[in-house]
């Protein structure tokens, strides 16, 4: 079974530029998450989708971050304009549904450096 796919793996941009990350979850997984992991910290949720609807985006800096999952499968996370403090790993994850017993599986991450 294929895992969670993410691209690009690495990106270096200058501050005030824009960047987009793409995620393809495990087939059949209704719930998709985007986490931000800053060096030395645990991942923190940015946004959570159930199919193509947003469950929680309370931690998403909406002045610069946006995310969509239009057809309930793939998702895109965009940052515009980027700030230095956005340097982090952006992890996409998916699970079968919101049931707590189901495992959340993570992709390899998209590593962003803002200079």
């Amino acid at each position: 079974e294929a895992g969670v796919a993410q691209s690009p793996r690495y990106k270096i941009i200058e501050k005030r530029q824009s960047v987009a990350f793409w995620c393809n979850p495990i087939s059949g997984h209704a719930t998709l998450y985007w986490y931000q992991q800053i060096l030395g910290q645990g991942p923190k949720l940015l946004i959570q989708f159930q199919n193509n609807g947003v469950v929680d985006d309370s931690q998403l800096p909406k002045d610069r971050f946006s995310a969509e999952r239009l057809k309930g499968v793939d998702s895109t996370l965009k940052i515009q304009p980027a700030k230095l403090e956005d340097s982090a790993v952006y992890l996409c994850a998916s699970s079968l549904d919101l049931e707590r017993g189901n495992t959340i599986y993570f992709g390899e991450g998209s590593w962003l450096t803002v200079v």
Partner: protein
Amino acid sequence: AQSVAQPEDQVNVAEGNPLTVKCTYSVSGNPYLFWYVQYPNRGLQFLLKYITGDNLVKGSYGFEAEFNKSQTSFHLKKPSALVSDSALYFCAVRLLYGGSQGNLIFGKGTKLSVKP
């Protein structure tokens, strides 16, 4: 508020010795607890989870974890450490309710270093 604590930033152990990575939690209701491992420049890999049932949970790569309700702990263990176990380990609890239902709350991580 629900939270997870990993009291040790780093754990050092010699190869072949047993290892323990500590985790304590604070949740409302029954806890759903997870351990993940992160190797350098990689994403998080699922190791094991506790939902209900036996307090000793067995997972991938020979790891196991012991759930202790009275001490609100979920320590990760392995009887004999390998150099290849050196990585960053995260404990997490999955939320039951609220706006982030189903989301994972992570500890800050513990770096495990296994020396030959």
